[in-house]
């Protein structure tokens, strides 16, 4: 059976692009011809859909411990949409860790350039916001 992709983009020309997995999200290499819809599969199996933004960003946060009781793990998925220089950030726990359960979501808004720990992120892709 074909695995369910982590996310799907509906692009300006109605073609679709799928991101494989948390390990290989592939957003950086996704086509640049404009995103109409970003459809993210949540750990629960539900989908989060964003549309109507000027720009989109998506990335995975990971920790690599280098001393102590070491572990490498992903913590959160970040899906961001930017409109009029305001970033709406969806931070979604990728798995159970600490006080978080997989799928726990925090939604916040930031000025563009301060969207991650008060700092900018790279890799934004153009959106189509006139639909």
């Amino acid at each position, binding site marked *: 059976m074909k695995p369910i992709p982590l996310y799907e983009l509906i692009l300006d020309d109605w073609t679709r692009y799928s991101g494989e997995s948390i*390990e*290989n*999200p*592939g*957003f*950086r290499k996704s086509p640049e011809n404009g995103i109409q819809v970003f459809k993210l599969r949540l750990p629960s199996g539900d989908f989060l859909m964003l549309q109507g933004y000027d720009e989109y*960003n*998506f*990335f*995975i*946060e*990971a*920790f*690599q*411990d*280098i*001393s*102590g*009781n*070491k*572990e*490498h*793990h992903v*913590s959160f998925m*970040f899906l961001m949409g930017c409109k009029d220089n305001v970033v709406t950030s969806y931070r979604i726990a990728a798995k159970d*860790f*600490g*006080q978080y359960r997989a799928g726990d979501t925090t939604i916040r808004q930031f000025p563009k350039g301060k969207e*991650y*720990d008060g*700092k*900018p*992120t*790279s*890799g934004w892709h153009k959106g189509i916001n006139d639909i």
Partner: protein
Amino acid sequence: MTNLIVAVNVVDATVNKATTPADYIDVDLVNDKLIWSAGSAAVYDNCGYIPNSTQLDAAASIISSVAVEVAHCFLADNSATNLRSVIGASSGNNRYVFCFSFDNATATEPTLEAWDTNTHTTSNFHVLGNGTPANSMFHAICTTAGSPGASWSGTHLAGSSKVNLNNGSGALGAAGDLYANIYILIPASYATAENSTPVLTVRYTYA
């Protein structure tokens, strides 16, 4: 996915990993350990074994009426069954000490952090400032762009007090090596002795 390799310099802290990779040991992030110690007749560079806990306890730094910098950072190299001194891990003007090699771009600037456990939620060890990051005994500094200077103090590393590893220049646009130096300074007459295993961690993102 962007992968991270951590390496330590064991020969000459004036050379980087790209030009002189033989001076570095890649840290096995599952089996190797970093150990800060005063050193002793049983705990020293290239001793040919990995000291046991009794030997390490006996080589602990002693709290004094003056501040004490822990003399050594050792890599317990599991595959070589050996202890290697991380050259230049101190408040000296040493640039190429801890190397963080990313094999691809990141979406944000990688950061070096310190926590009590691998859940990365608290920093209450005494060595981490007993809940007050500004009192952390771990000092760290980004040396990616240049040497730290003599007798540097850097950032008190604990919890939300962290070090940007790309010198504040943001995300990595491609694969690259970032550098930092780290040491521990025990305050004068500190009231509580501690043997702890804080978690140093690198937080990074990929797309």
